């Protein structure tokens, strides 16, 4: 393999004659952000904003959205579970399940399900991350911020552009990418991209001595880019991504050993066709984004994460979403005023099957043991028996979410002062049809000589409506080298339903039906989990107050500093039933407040023989509940779990221009990040202390080729990325150990 790499390398490096003739071929053309809804608003100037351009994307080796963790201050996207796990924490906000705190927009199209967030990003030219509520512009699920990803378009180039990547790293990990962007004419171009990824995995299941977190991933992208007139630009894209992986490498905290007996994995197919049109005339701009998002996924897990054969969960989803966004911007008709207006709508349907299957040990320990403990206090010589070796609780759901929104933003300019006021109305309807059922054969020895079948079923439908009014008011003051701003804005996370809790509700009803069948009446200790109405939860809302400044004191240097305060109401938190039951659910059970500050610095320099880039960031968030009593404890004053208190990141890269035919550039990149402390539970009695990860890259560069040697977590720092408690057992997932890799990049 190594020999092949060097042969390929030598073939690719024959063309250049000297370093002086070499231009910065890997740096893409100037980024055109006119199509960005964000770019047309005052928000970038009047909010915390991180811009990660193509150069920083390459040197920081950002290949998935999770890689921006810590690079953007206050952002933490832990890599755990599976590709469907896209927990995002920003500014102390976020949650394990439910709707996201951070919106993700790719080429103007919002991803409508966070199960799609974790994907391989290919040919990205820029990532803008708005820190703070996207409120009046983006609305739904952007109360912590918006990540806007812009990819390469064929008409960004004047000639054909070919890119390739081949990577090999620890754990037999392979990554291959290839793409071509071809402007056929000045008014039409096309692009085609494909990628593949494989890893054997880092974590071993001691039960069968196999890797738990192996993975395959493949995808592609077709782009058509047309300028039918000087005013219009129309782009059509189709993205497809497929993931198939082992998942959930959760180790018992007591032993630090992963050992479970049932297979766990995740498979997902996403296809996203989108159409985007821009009309620019006399300063007027009209942007239209239409998309359809198809997702099919299949997740299965050993839900007890032990070698005991207790119970498993399988969840499959078939989802179709359609979105349409229109944005209209008017230039300054008078010197002091400009405005923008937009409407957006979406429909999302999701068919979900989520059977929970109790295996024999689960039937014995979770059902019969509980039941017989009670029965035998009265009838000590008798017991309940279940004949089945497996007890499946089938659950079928059909979800429909439909929403529409309208927003307006006015900007007033008075010399160096700028005032912007925005208002957005979001209306959403959510409907759930459900059917959950179980059949099993039982016998109560006291009075039954034979087994009898009992059938339990709950079915029906439920719908809820949400209306949100999202105002935003911002004021800024410009000087030649600084913009100082302050704003107040409201954001929200959508409400929805808890399918996860249905197995618990059905389990409770099953026990009731079983008891009734025998002429008994059970007393359910935690009656919250007997009523389907509890499966819905309301939107979470947050008001953000922020003061900050964007400084550009010298060429190449930018410095952002901000401080913020967030008050969150109806906070969506995960609550668990008491005792040895199996479900979890989202509930609007808390309020919280967050104080925080962020700083980000980027400095780029160019000299005759060398150039470089430094990026540093720091985020602090003191996020605490002001009110949260889940029935088992009062957590007011406690830290919000899973969100880090501090994130810090530093990257420095220097590229030396060499006077050599053999090698044109040599680059050295060092990066370090520090994250923590992360509290793992509401009690705050268990946490991940701050940990440091060091990385380095050496890049050998020719005119069209780069050869990289890189390492991540070079000190092999042990750290945990996830912790949870289930059935009175503690589990955690370790972060990736040291990784070393070789990349070859081609740009033609």
């Amino acid at each position: 393999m190594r020999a092949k790499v060097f042969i390929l390398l030598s073939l690719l490096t024959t063309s250049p004659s000297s370093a002086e003739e070499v231009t910065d071929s890997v740096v893409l053309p100037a980024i055109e952000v006119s199509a960005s809804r964000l770019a047309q608003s005052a928000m970038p100037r009047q909010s915390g904003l991180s811009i990660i351009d193509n150069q920083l994307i390459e040197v920081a080796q950002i290949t998935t959205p999770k890689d921006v963790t810590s690079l953007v201050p206050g952002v933490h996207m832990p890599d755990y579970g599976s590709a469907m796990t896209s927990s995002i924490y920003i500014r102390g906000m976020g949650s394990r399940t439910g709707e996201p705190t951070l919106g993700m927009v790719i080429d103007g199209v919002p991803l409508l399900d966070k199960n799609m967030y974790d994907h391989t990003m290919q040919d990205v030219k820029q990532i803008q991350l708005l820190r703070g509520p996207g409120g009046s512009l983006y609305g739904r699920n952007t109360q912590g911020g918006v990540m806007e990803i812009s990819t390469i378009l064929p008409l960004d180039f004047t000639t054909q552009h070919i890119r390739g990547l081949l990577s090999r790293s620890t754990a037999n990990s392979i990554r291959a990418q290839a793409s071509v962007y071809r402007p056929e004419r000045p008014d039409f171009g096309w692009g085609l991209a494909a990628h593949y990824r494989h890893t054997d995995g880092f974590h071993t299941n001691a039960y069968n001595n196999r890797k738990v977190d192996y993975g395959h991933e493949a995808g592609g992208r077709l782009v058509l880019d047309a300028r039918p007139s000087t005013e219009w630009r129309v782009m059509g894209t189709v993205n497809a991504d497929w993931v198939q992986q082992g998942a959930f490498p959760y180790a018992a905290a007591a032993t630090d050993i992963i050992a479970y007996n049932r297979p766990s994995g995740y498979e997902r197919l996403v296809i996203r066709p989108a159409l985007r049109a821009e009309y620019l005339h006399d300063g007027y701009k009209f942007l239209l984004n239409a998309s359809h998002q198809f997702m099919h996924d299949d997740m299965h897990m050993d839900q007890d994460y032990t070698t005991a054969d207790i119970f498993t969960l399988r969840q499959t989803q078939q989802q179709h979403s359609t979105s349409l966004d229109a944005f209209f911007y008017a230039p300054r008709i008078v010197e002091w005023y400009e405005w923008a207006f937009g409407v957006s709508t979406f429909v999302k349907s999701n068919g979900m099957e989520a059977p929970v299957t109790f295996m024999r040990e689960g039937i014995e320990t979770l059902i019969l043991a509980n039941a017989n403990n009670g029965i035998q206090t009265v009838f000590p010589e008798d017991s309940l028996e279940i004949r089945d070796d497996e007890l499946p609780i089938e659950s079928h759901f059909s979800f429909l979410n439909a929403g529409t929104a309208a927003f307006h933003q006015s900007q007033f300019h008075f010399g160096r002062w700028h005032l912007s006021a925005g208002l957005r109305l979001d209306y959403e309807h959510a409907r759930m049809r459900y059917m959950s059922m179980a059949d099993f054969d039982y016998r109560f020895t006291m009075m039954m000589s034979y087994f009898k079948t009992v059938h339990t079923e709950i079915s029906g439908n439920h719908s809820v409506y949400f209306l949100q009014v999202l105002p935003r008011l911002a004021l800024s003051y410009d000087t030649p080298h600084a913009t100082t701003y302050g704003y107040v804005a409201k954001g929200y996370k959508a409400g929805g339903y808890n399918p996860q809790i249905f197995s618990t509700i059905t389990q409770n009803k099953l026990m009731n039906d079983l008891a009734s069948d025998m002429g008994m009446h059970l007393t359910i200790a935690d009656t919250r989990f007997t009523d389907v109405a509890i499966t819905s939860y309301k939107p979470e809302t947050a008001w953000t107050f922020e003061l900050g400044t964007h400084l550009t004191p010298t060429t190449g240097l930018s410095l952002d500093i901000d401080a913020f305060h967030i008050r969150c109401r109806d906070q969506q938190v995960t609550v668990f039933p008491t005792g040895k039951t199996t479900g979890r659910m989202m509930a609007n059970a808390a309020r919280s407040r967050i104080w925080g500050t962020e700083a980000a610095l980027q400095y780029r320099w160019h000299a005759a023989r060398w150039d470089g880039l430094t990026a540093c960031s720091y985020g602090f968030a003191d996020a605490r509940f002001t009110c949260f009593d889940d029935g088992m404890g009062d957590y007011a004053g406690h830290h919000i779990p899973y969100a880090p208190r501090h994130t810090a990141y530093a990257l420095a890269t220097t590229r030396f221009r060499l006077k050599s035919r053999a090698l044109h550039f040599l680059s050295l990149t060092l990066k370090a990040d520090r994250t923590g402390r992360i509290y793992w539970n509401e009690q705050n009695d268990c946490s991940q202390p701050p940990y440091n990860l060091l990385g380095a890259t050496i890049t050998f560069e020719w005119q069209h080729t780069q050869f990289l040697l890189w390492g991540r977590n070079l000190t092999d720092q042990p750290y945990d990325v996830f912790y949870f408690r289930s059935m009175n057992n503690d589990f955690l997932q370790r972060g990736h150990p040291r990784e070393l890799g070789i990349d070859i990049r081609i740009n033609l």
Partner: protein
Amino acid sequence: MTLAALIAACSPITPDTPEEQQKAAFEEATEFTACGRIAVPSQTFTLDSVRVEARLRGTTTIDIYLYEVTFSPRMPVRIDMVIPDADCTRTKGRVTFTGNGIEPTMGGNPVARYVVTDLQGAITPDSLTFTTAFGGMTCTYHGALVW
């Protein structure tokens, strides 16, 4: 006047007070519902608001239904139990019932181990009371009739 007197004379005699109405209804009824207290002396346990129904079948048989009852503070479930086929005697203003060696049922299934012995009870227009033993565990019930 004559007509009014005639109508009054021909009209059925209706009870004047609620008590009299209740007594009249009692004589006609074949199903009785009571709400009251069950006591288990051996467990020093009492449970209030226990619903008991008595359903006459013919003139000599009665079924006693106990709903959501427990017999011990440790008992985590409430049970529905039926004492079927007790002997009964109906006289004016009173139904008495007795039984011995009756297998009660739960959910339609006979529970042989908790056979009913020494059942003795009475229903009046005001109350339903009985004493019995389930598998040797004595209990008493006293409930007010619900009309």
